[in-house]
Protein backbone atom coordinates (compact mmCIF):
# COMPACT_ATOMS: atom_id res chain seq x y z
CA UNK A 1 0.00 0.00 0.00
CA UNK A 2 1.84 3.02 -1.14
CA UNK A 3 0.32 5.87 0.74
CA UNK A 4 1.62 9.33 0.19
CA UNK A 5 2.00 11.50 3.23
CA UNK A 6 -0.17 14.54 2.66
CA UNK A 7 -3.86 14.32 3.27
CA UNK A 8 -5.34 15.75 0.11
CA UNK A 9 -4.44 16.39 -3.47
CA UNK A 10 -2.27 14.08 -5.50
CA UNK A 11 -3.98 10.74 -5.02
CA UNK A 12 -7.49 12.11 -4.90
CA UNK A 13 -7.90 11.03 -8.49
CA UNK A 14 -7.57 7.38 -7.47
CA UNK A 15 -10.51 7.79 -5.14
CA UNK A 16 -12.46 9.56 -7.83
CA UNK A 17 -11.78 6.83 -10.36
CA UNK A 18 -12.71 4.11 -7.85
CA UNK A 19 -15.84 6.00 -6.83
CA UNK A 20 -17.05 6.52 -10.36
CA UNK A 21 -16.16 2.95 -11.32
CA UNK A 22 -18.15 1.65 -8.35
CA UNK A 23 -21.14 3.79 -9.20
CA UNK A 24 -21.24 2.80 -12.87
CA UNK A 25 -20.45 -0.78 -11.97
CA UNK A 26 -23.34 -0.90 -9.54
CA UNK A 27 -25.83 0.44 -12.08
CA UNK A 28 -24.69 -2.18 -14.57
CA UNK A 29 -24.91 -4.82 -11.84
CA UNK A 30 -28.50 -3.86 -11.15
CA UNK A 31 -29.29 -4.13 -14.82
CA UNK A 32 -27.65 -7.55 -15.00
CA UNK A 33 -29.38 -8.79 -11.90
CA UNK A 34 -32.88 -7.57 -12.66
CA UNK A 35 -33.10 -7.60 -16.41
CA UNK A 36 -30.34 -9.70 -17.96
CA UNK A 37 -30.62 -12.83 -15.80
CA UNK A 38 -33.76 -14.94 -15.97
CA UNK A 39 -36.01 -15.41 -12.95
CA UNK A 40 -35.24 -18.70 -11.26
CA UNK A 41 -38.17 -21.08 -11.51
CA UNK A 42 -38.17 -22.78 -8.11
CA UNK A 43 -37.37 -19.84 -5.86
CA UNK A 44 -38.81 -17.02 -7.88
CA UNK A 45 -37.56 -13.46 -7.92
CA UNK A 46 -36.04 -13.64 -4.44
CA UNK A 47 -33.27 -15.84 -5.80
CA UNK A 48 -31.74 -12.65 -7.17
CA UNK A 49 -30.58 -11.90 -3.62
CA UNK A 50 -28.03 -14.62 -4.33
CA UNK A 51 -25.88 -12.22 -6.37
CA UNK A 52 -25.34 -9.66 -3.66
CA UNK A 53 -25.22 -12.33 -0.98
CA UNK A 54 -22.37 -14.15 -2.66
CA UNK A 55 -20.52 -11.00 -3.63
CA UNK A 56 -20.77 -9.76 -0.03
CA UNK A 57 -19.43 -12.93 1.54
CA UNK A 58 -16.64 -12.95 -1.04
CA UNK A 59 -15.71 -9.45 0.09
CA UNK A 60 -15.90 -10.45 3.73
CA UNK A 61 -13.53 -13.37 3.26
CA UNK A 62 -11.21 -11.30 1.10
CA UNK A 63 -11.14 -8.61 3.80
CA UNK A 64 -10.46 -11.03 6.63
CA UNK A 65 -7.76 -12.72 4.60
CA UNK A 66 -6.06 -9.35 4.16
CA UNK A 67 -6.46 -8.74 7.91
CA UNK A 68 -4.84 -12.13 8.52
CA UNK A 69 -1.86 -11.40 6.28
CA UNK A 70 -1.44 -7.86 7.60
CA UNK A 71 -1.59 -9.21 11.17
CA UNK A 72 1.19 -11.71 10.53
CA UNK A 73 3.30 -9.03 8.90
CA UNK A 74 2.57 -6.68 11.79
CA UNK A 75 3.75 -9.15 14.41
CA UNK A 76 6.90 -9.83 12.43
CA UNK A 77 7.72 -6.18 12.07
CA UNK A 78 5.28 -3.78 13.71
CA UNK A 79 4.33 -0.64 11.86
CA UNK A 80 1.40 1.72 12.12
CA UNK A 81 0.64 1.35 8.42
CA UNK A 82 0.12 -2.43 8.64
CA UNK A 83 -2.13 -1.98 11.62
CA UNK A 84 -4.18 0.69 9.85
CA UNK A 85 -4.52 -1.56 6.85
CA UNK A 86 -5.68 -4.50 8.99
CA UNK A 87 -8.18 -2.39 10.89
CA UNK A 88 -9.60 -0.75 7.77
CA UNK A 89 -10.10 -4.09 6.05
CA UNK A 90 -11.59 -5.60 9.20
CA UNK A 91 -14.14 -2.82 9.33
CA UNK A 92 -15.05 -3.28 5.67
CA UNK A 93 -15.21 -7.03 6.29
CA UNK A 94 -17.67 -6.52 9.11
CA UNK A 95 -19.81 -4.26 6.94
CA UNK A 96 -20.01 -6.93 4.25
CA UNK A 97 -20.55 -9.71 6.76
CA UNK A 98 -23.49 -7.69 8.06
CA UNK A 99 -24.88 -7.45 4.54
CA UNK A 100 -24.36 -11.18 4.06
CA UNK A 101 -26.17 -12.02 7.27
CA UNK A 102 -29.13 -9.75 6.63
CA UNK A 103 -29.51 -10.66 2.97
CA UNK A 104 -29.17 -14.33 3.89
CA UNK A 105 -31.89 -14.05 6.49
CA UNK A 106 -34.22 -12.19 4.13
CA UNK A 107 -33.55 -14.70 1.40
CA UNK A 108 -34.21 -17.52 3.84
CA UNK A 109 -37.63 -16.33 4.91
CA UNK A 110 -39.59 -17.17 1.74
CA UNK A 111 -37.40 -20.20 0.99
CA UNK A 112 -37.14 -21.85 4.42
CA UNK A 113 -40.13 -20.18 5.97
CA UNK A 114 -37.92 -18.65 8.66
CA UNK A 115 -35.37 -15.88 8.84
CA UNK A 116 -32.88 -17.88 10.80
CA UNK A 117 -32.34 -21.57 10.25
CA UNK A 118 -28.96 -22.38 11.86
CA UNK A 119 -27.80 -23.31 8.44
CA UNK A 120 -24.05 -24.09 8.74
CA UNK A 121 -23.08 -21.24 6.45
CA UNK A 122 -25.22 -18.69 8.25
CA UNK A 123 -24.04 -19.92 11.64
CA UNK A 124 -20.40 -19.71 10.60
CA UNK A 125 -21.01 -16.24 9.19
CA UNK A 126 -22.60 -15.12 12.44
CA UNK A 127 -19.57 -16.33 14.42
CA UNK A 128 -17.29 -14.68 11.88
CA UNK A 129 -19.16 -11.44 12.43
CA UNK A 130 -18.84 -11.72 16.22
CA UNK A 131 -15.11 -12.50 16.08
CA UNK A 132 -14.34 -9.46 13.95
CA UNK A 133 -16.61 -7.14 15.91
CA UNK A 134 -14.59 -8.18 18.97
CA UNK A 135 -11.44 -7.63 16.91
CA UNK A 136 -12.53 -4.06 16.23
CA UNK A 137 -13.48 -3.46 19.87
CA UNK A 138 -10.24 -4.90 21.22
CA UNK A 139 -7.98 -1.89 20.64
CA UNK A 140 -10.33 0.26 22.69
CA UNK A 141 -10.14 -2.17 25.60
CA UNK A 142 -6.36 -2.10 25.88
CA UNK A 143 -4.75 0.95 27.44
CA UNK A 144 -1.40 1.01 25.64
CA UNK A 145 -2.10 1.55 21.91
CA UNK A 146 0.94 -0.47 20.85
CA UNK A 147 -0.24 -3.41 22.92
CA UNK A 148 -3.75 -2.96 21.54
CA UNK A 149 -2.46 -3.25 17.98
CA UNK A 150 -0.49 -6.35 18.88
CA UNK A 151 -3.50 -8.01 20.53
CA UNK A 152 -5.68 -7.15 17.56
CA UNK A 153 -3.12 -8.85 15.31
CA UNK A 154 -3.29 -11.98 17.47
CA UNK A 155 -7.06 -12.08 17.16
CA UNK A 156 -6.76 -11.33 13.43
CA UNK A 157 -4.67 -14.49 13.08
CA UNK A 158 -6.51 -16.84 15.43
CA UNK A 159 -9.87 -15.59 14.14
CA UNK A 160 -9.05 -16.32 10.52
CA UNK A 161 -7.62 -19.78 11.21
CA UNK A 162 -10.68 -20.44 13.34
CA UNK A 163 -13.18 -19.78 10.56
CA UNK A 164 -12.75 -22.99 8.54
CA UNK A 165 -12.60 -24.98 11.79
CA UNK A 166 -15.84 -23.42 12.95
CA UNK A 167 -17.42 -24.07 9.58
CA UNK A 168 -16.35 -27.70 9.59
CA UNK A 169 -17.55 -28.33 13.10
CA UNK A 170 -20.86 -26.59 12.51
CA UNK A 171 -21.44 -28.48 9.29
CA UNK A 172 -20.78 -31.82 10.90
CA UNK A 173 -22.87 -30.84 13.85
CA UNK A 174 -25.65 -29.96 11.43
CA UNK A 175 -25.58 -33.35 9.70
CA UNK A 176 -27.33 -34.83 12.72
CA UNK A 177 -30.43 -32.82 12.00
CA UNK A 178 -32.74 -32.70 8.99
CA UNK A 179 -31.47 -30.15 6.53
CA UNK A 180 -34.05 -27.41 6.08
CA UNK A 181 -32.62 -26.18 2.81
CA UNK A 182 -35.14 -26.74 0.04
CA UNK A 183 -32.97 -25.74 -2.85
CA UNK A 184 -30.28 -23.25 -3.59
CA UNK A 185 -29.42 -21.93 -6.97
CA UNK A 186 -25.78 -22.75 -6.58
CA UNK A 187 -25.53 -26.04 -8.31
CA UNK A 188 -23.41 -26.60 -11.37
CA UNK A 189 -26.56 -26.42 -13.50
CA UNK A 190 -26.72 -22.65 -13.15
CA UNK A 191 -27.38 -20.94 -16.49
CA UNK A 192 -24.33 -19.20 -17.88
CA UNK A 193 -25.98 -15.78 -17.63
CA UNK A 194 -26.25 -16.27 -13.87
CA UNK A 195 -22.59 -17.19 -13.60
CA UNK A 196 -21.54 -14.13 -15.55
CA UNK A 197 -23.66 -11.95 -13.31
CA UNK A 198 -22.24 -13.49 -10.15
CA UNK A 199 -18.67 -13.02 -11.31
CA UNK A 200 -19.41 -9.49 -12.39
CA UNK A 201 -20.98 -8.67 -9.02
CA UNK A 202 -17.94 -10.05 -7.22
CA UNK A 203 -15.69 -7.76 -9.23
CA UNK A 204 -17.86 -4.69 -8.64
CA UNK A 205 -18.14 -5.40 -4.92
CA UNK A 206 -14.38 -5.78 -4.69
CA UNK A 207 -13.98 -2.37 -6.30
CA UNK A 208 -16.52 -1.00 -3.83
CA UNK A 209 -14.54 -2.53 -0.95
CA UNK A 210 -11.31 -0.98 -2.25
CA UNK A 211 -13.01 2.38 -2.49
CA UNK A 212 -14.37 2.16 1.06
CA UNK A 213 -11.05 0.93 2.47
CA UNK A 214 -9.26 3.89 0.94
CA UNK A 215 -11.73 6.26 2.56
CA UNK A 216 -11.21 4.47 5.87
CA UNK A 217 -7.44 4.75 5.52
CA UNK A 218 -7.69 8.46 4.79
CA UNK A 219 -9.48 8.91 8.10
CA UNK A 220 -6.68 7.17 9.98
CA UNK A 221 -4.03 9.20 8.21
CA UNK A 222 -5.85 12.43 8.95
CA UNK A 223 -6.14 11.41 12.60
CA UNK A 224 -2.40 10.83 12.64
CA UNK A 225 -1.74 14.20 11.02
CA UNK A 226 -3.98 15.82 13.57
CA UNK A 227 -2.09 14.12 16.38
CA UNK A 228 1.23 15.26 14.95
CA UNK A 229 -0.04 18.79 14.59
CA UNK A 230 -1.27 18.84 18.16
CA UNK A 231 1.93 17.35 19.50
CA UNK A 232 4.25 19.72 17.70
CA UNK A 233 2.00 22.63 18.57
CA UNK A 234 2.63 22.06 22.27
Amino acid at each position, binding site marked *: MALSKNAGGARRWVDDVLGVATLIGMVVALWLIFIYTPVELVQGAVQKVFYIHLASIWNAYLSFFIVFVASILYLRRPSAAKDRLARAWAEIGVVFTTITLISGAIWGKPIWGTYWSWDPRLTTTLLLWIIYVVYLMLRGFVG*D*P*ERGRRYAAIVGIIGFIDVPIVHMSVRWWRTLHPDPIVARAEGPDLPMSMWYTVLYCIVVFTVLALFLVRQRLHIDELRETLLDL*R*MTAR
Partner: protein
Amino acid sequence: MGDSETSGMDPIVAVQGLTKRYGAQTALDQLDLCLDRNERLAVLGPNGAGKTTLIAVLATLVRPSAGTLRVMGYDSAAAPNEVRRHIGVVAHQTYLYEELSARENLQFFGRLHGVQDLEARVETLLKLVDIYPRRHEPIANLSRGMQQRVALARALVHDPDVLLLDEPDTGLDQAHLALLASLVQGRAIPARTVILTTHNLERALELCGRVAVLAQGRLVYQAASAALDRAALHDAYHRLAGAAP
Protein backbone atom coordinates in the same frame (compact mmCIF):
# COMPACT_ATOMS: atom_id res chain seq x y z
CA MET B 1 29.36 -16.12 35.86
CA GLY B 2 29.24 -13.94 32.79
CA ASP B 3 32.98 -13.71 32.27
CA SER B 4 32.65 -13.17 28.57
CA GLU B 5 35.55 -11.08 27.42
CA THR B 6 34.39 -7.51 27.71
CA SER B 7 37.42 -5.32 27.46
CA GLY B 8 37.48 -1.69 28.46
CA MET B 9 36.31 -0.68 25.01
CA ASP B 10 33.02 -2.54 25.18
CA PRO B 11 30.33 -0.82 27.20
CA ILE B 12 28.26 -3.06 29.46
CA VAL B 13 25.07 -1.13 28.80
CA ALA B 14 24.72 0.76 25.52
CA VAL B 15 21.52 2.60 24.74
CA GLN B 16 20.95 4.45 21.51
CA GLY B 17 18.06 6.68 20.49
CA LEU B 18 15.77 4.94 22.93
CA THR B 19 12.20 6.19 22.52
CA LYS B 20 8.99 5.00 24.08
CA ARG B 21 5.67 6.49 23.12
CA TYR B 22 2.32 5.69 24.67
CA GLY B 23 -0.04 6.98 22.02
CA ALA B 24 0.51 10.71 21.87
CA GLN B 25 2.60 10.70 25.06
CA THR B 26 6.35 10.40 24.74
CA ALA B 27 7.76 8.80 27.86
CA LEU B 28 11.32 8.43 26.59
CA ASP B 29 12.68 10.67 23.90
CA GLN B 30 15.78 9.75 21.88
CA LEU B 31 17.73 8.69 24.93
CA ASP B 32 21.42 7.77 24.67
CA LEU B 33 23.33 6.12 27.48
CA CYS B 34 26.55 4.24 27.91
CA LEU B 35 27.89 2.45 30.99
CA ASP B 36 31.25 0.75 31.42
CA ARG B 37 31.92 -2.20 33.67
CA ASN B 38 31.15 -1.48 37.33
CA GLU B 39 30.07 2.04 36.56
CA ARG B 40 27.18 3.29 38.66
CA LEU B 41 24.67 5.80 37.37
CA ALA B 42 21.92 7.49 39.36
CA VAL B 43 19.01 8.84 37.37
CA LEU B 44 17.27 11.69 39.10
CA GLY B 45 13.97 13.10 38.08
CA PRO B 46 10.55 14.15 39.26
CA ASN B 47 7.57 11.80 39.12
CA GLY B 48 6.43 11.33 35.57
CA ALA B 49 9.85 12.13 34.13
CA GLY B 50 10.06 8.64 32.66
CA LYS B 51 12.29 6.98 35.25
CA THR B 52 10.10 3.95 35.68
CA THR B 53 9.63 3.61 31.91
CA LEU B 54 13.39 3.82 31.47
CA ILE B 55 13.98 1.00 33.94
CA ALA B 56 11.17 -1.05 32.37
CA VAL B 57 12.63 -0.66 28.87
CA LEU B 58 16.16 -1.44 30.08
CA ALA B 59 14.72 -4.50 31.84
CA THR B 60 13.17 -5.68 28.52
CA LEU B 61 9.73 -5.48 30.11
CA VAL B 62 8.59 -2.76 27.74
CA ARG B 63 9.47 -2.73 24.07
CA PRO B 64 10.92 0.57 22.92
CA SER B 65 9.08 2.35 20.12
CA ALA B 66 12.46 3.14 18.59
CA GLY B 67 16.14 2.85 19.40
CA THR B 68 18.35 0.00 20.57
CA LEU B 69 19.49 -1.44 23.85
CA ARG B 70 22.58 -3.62 24.19
CA VAL B 71 23.64 -5.31 27.38
CA MET B 72 27.01 -7.10 27.48
CA GLY B 73 26.99 -6.88 23.71
CA TYR B 74 23.60 -8.58 23.34
CA ASP B 75 20.88 -6.74 21.50
CA SER B 76 17.61 -6.67 23.45
CA ALA B 77 15.48 -7.11 20.34
CA ALA B 78 17.51 -9.96 18.84
CA ALA B 79 18.50 -11.83 22.01
CA PRO B 80 16.21 -10.69 24.82
CA ASN B 81 16.85 -13.78 26.93
CA GLU B 82 20.60 -13.19 26.85
CA VAL B 83 19.98 -9.66 28.08
CA ARG B 84 17.70 -10.98 30.79
CA ARG B 85 20.39 -13.39 31.97
CA HIS B 86 22.66 -10.45 32.72
CA ILE B 87 20.31 -8.05 34.45
CA GLY B 88 18.74 -7.99 37.89
CA VAL B 89 15.81 -5.70 38.51
CA VAL B 90 14.22 -4.13 41.56
CA ALA B 91 11.10 -2.12 40.78
CA HIS B 92 8.26 -0.49 42.66
CA GLN B 93 6.52 -3.81 42.77
CA THR B 94 8.48 -6.51 44.54
CA TYR B 95 7.61 -9.23 41.98
CA LEU B 96 7.23 -11.58 44.94
CA TYR B 97 4.43 -14.09 45.53
CA GLU B 98 2.61 -13.21 48.72
CA GLU B 99 1.65 -16.78 49.48
CA LEU B 100 5.21 -18.06 49.22
CA SER B 101 7.96 -17.51 51.77
CA ALA B 102 11.08 -15.50 51.07
CA ARG B 103 13.01 -18.71 50.61
CA GLU B 104 10.45 -20.22 48.24
CA ASN B 105 10.33 -17.02 46.21
CA LEU B 106 14.09 -16.96 45.80
CA GLN B 107 14.14 -20.64 44.92
CA PHE B 108 11.44 -20.15 42.31
CA PHE B 109 13.23 -17.28 40.60
CA GLY B 110 16.53 -19.13 40.92
CA ARG B 111 15.06 -22.11 39.11
CA LEU B 112 13.69 -19.85 36.39
CA HIS B 113 17.21 -18.52 35.92
CA GLY B 114 18.76 -21.96 36.03
CA VAL B 115 21.02 -21.03 38.94
CA GLN B 116 23.55 -23.69 39.88
CA ASP B 117 23.85 -24.80 43.50
CA LEU B 118 20.63 -22.95 44.27
CA GLU B 119 20.18 -24.08 47.87
CA ALA B 120 23.45 -22.49 49.00
CA ARG B 121 22.92 -19.39 46.89
CA VAL B 122 19.51 -18.77 48.46
CA GLU B 123 20.88 -19.26 51.98
CA THR B 124 23.67 -16.78 51.33
CA LEU B 125 21.32 -14.18 49.92
CA LEU B 126 18.80 -14.55 52.74
CA LYS B 127 21.58 -13.90 55.21
CA LEU B 128 22.99 -11.10 53.13
CA VAL B 129 19.74 -9.11 53.12
CA ASP B 130 19.16 -9.88 56.77
CA ILE B 131 15.91 -11.80 56.31
CA TYR B 132 17.23 -15.24 57.28
CA PRO B 133 15.37 -15.61 60.60
CA ARG B 134 12.05 -15.03 58.84
CA ARG B 135 12.80 -16.94 55.68
CA HIS B 136 9.90 -19.37 56.13
CA GLU B 137 7.17 -16.80 56.60
CA PRO B 138 4.90 -15.92 53.70
CA ILE B 139 5.85 -12.64 52.05
CA ALA B 140 2.45 -11.19 52.95
CA ASN B 141 3.47 -11.26 56.64
CA LEU B 142 6.60 -9.18 56.08
CA SER B 143 6.77 -5.41 56.26
CA ARG B 144 7.31 -3.33 53.13
CA GLY B 145 10.95 -2.81 54.05
CA MET B 146 11.55 -6.52 54.50
CA GLN B 147 9.80 -7.27 51.23
CA GLN B 148 12.05 -4.73 49.56
CA ARG B 149 15.09 -6.57 50.93
CA VAL B 150 13.78 -9.86 49.60
CA ALA B 151 13.24 -8.13 46.27
CA LEU B 152 16.89 -7.08 46.34
CA ALA B 153 17.89 -10.67 46.99
CA ARG B 154 15.62 -11.80 44.15
CA ALA B 155 17.35 -9.39 41.79
CA LEU B 156 20.71 -10.85 42.80
CA VAL B 157 19.78 -14.51 42.72
CA HIS B 158 21.37 -15.17 39.32
CA ASP B 159 24.39 -12.98 40.04
CA PRO B 160 23.66 -10.48 37.25
CA ASP B 161 26.31 -8.19 35.80
CA VAL B 162 23.91 -5.27 35.67
CA LEU B 163 21.55 -4.10 38.39
CA LEU B 164 18.56 -1.93 37.51
CA LEU B 165 17.05 -0.41 40.62
CA ASP B 166 13.92 1.72 40.50
CA GLU B 167 13.91 3.71 43.74
CA PRO B 168 15.47 0.87 45.71
CA ASP B 169 15.37 2.83 48.97
CA THR B 170 11.58 2.51 49.17
CA GLY B 171 10.57 1.43 52.67
CA LEU B 172 14.11 0.76 53.90
CA ASP B 173 15.09 1.94 57.37
CA GLN B 174 18.42 3.59 58.20
CA ALA B 175 20.28 0.34 58.93
CA HIS B 176 19.18 -1.25 55.70
CA LEU B 177 19.94 1.82 53.68
CA ALA B 178 23.51 1.09 54.64
CA LEU B 179 23.01 -2.47 53.44
CA LEU B 180 21.67 -1.16 50.15
CA ALA B 181 24.71 1.07 49.83
CA SER B 182 27.09 -1.81 50.47
CA LEU B 183 25.30 -3.92 47.86
CA VAL B 184 25.21 -1.21 45.24
CA GLN B 185 28.78 -0.13 45.81
CA GLY B 186 30.01 -3.69 45.64
CA ARG B 187 31.36 -3.95 49.17
CA ALA B 188 29.11 -6.74 50.45
CA ILE B 189 29.14 -8.48 47.09
CA PRO B 190 31.36 -8.19 44.02
CA ALA B 191 30.96 -4.87 42.23
CA ARG B 192 28.74 -4.62 39.21
CA THR B 193 27.23 -2.11 36.83
CA VAL B 194 24.30 -0.28 38.37
CA ILE B 195 21.59 2.04 37.12
CA LEU B 196 19.31 3.32 39.82
CA THR B 197 16.61 5.92 39.95
CA THR B 198 15.84 8.08 42.92
CA HIS B 199 14.57 11.51 43.73
CA ASN B 200 16.99 11.92 46.56
CA LEU B 201 20.07 13.80 45.35
CA GLU B 202 22.18 13.00 48.42
CA ARG B 203 21.53 9.29 48.03
CA ALA B 204 22.36 9.50 44.35
CA LEU B 205 25.70 11.15 45.12
CA GLU B 206 26.43 8.69 47.91
CA LEU B 207 25.73 5.58 45.88
CA CYS B 208 26.80 6.39 42.38
CA GLY B 209 29.77 7.71 40.53
CA ARG B 210 27.64 9.38 37.92
CA VAL B 211 24.46 11.40 38.12
CA ALA B 212 21.97 12.23 35.42
CA VAL B 213 18.73 14.16 35.40
CA LEU B 214 15.79 12.79 33.45
CA ALA B 215 13.05 15.22 32.51
CA GLN B 216 10.31 14.80 29.93
CA GLY B 217 11.93 11.61 28.70
CA ARG B 218 15.35 13.12 28.06
CA LEU B 219 18.64 13.04 29.93
CA VAL B 220 19.15 16.73 30.37
CA TYR B 221 22.17 16.78 32.67
CA GLN B 222 24.98 14.34 33.24
CA ALA B 223 28.06 14.61 35.42
CA ALA B 224 30.45 12.61 37.54
CA SER B 225 29.46 12.80 41.20
CA ALA B 226 32.93 13.95 42.24
CA ALA B 227 32.98 16.81 39.77
CA LEU B 228 29.40 17.76 40.30
CA ASP B 229 28.43 21.36 40.01
CA ARG B 230 25.57 21.37 42.48
CA ALA B 231 24.31 24.75 41.44
CA ALA B 232 24.12 23.65 37.82
CA LEU B 233 22.36 20.42 38.78
CA HIS B 234 19.85 22.20 40.97
CA ASP B 235 19.34 24.70 38.25
CA ALA B 236 18.78 22.06 35.58
CA TYR B 237 16.48 20.09 37.81
CA HIS B 238 14.56 23.12 38.87
CA ARG B 239 14.12 24.49 35.42
CA LEU B 240 12.97 21.23 33.91
CA ALA B 241 11.13 19.61 36.73
CA GLY B 242 9.80 22.59 38.58
CA ALA B 243 10.85 21.17 41.96
CA ALA B 244 14.10 20.85 43.84
CA PRO B 245 15.49 17.35 44.38
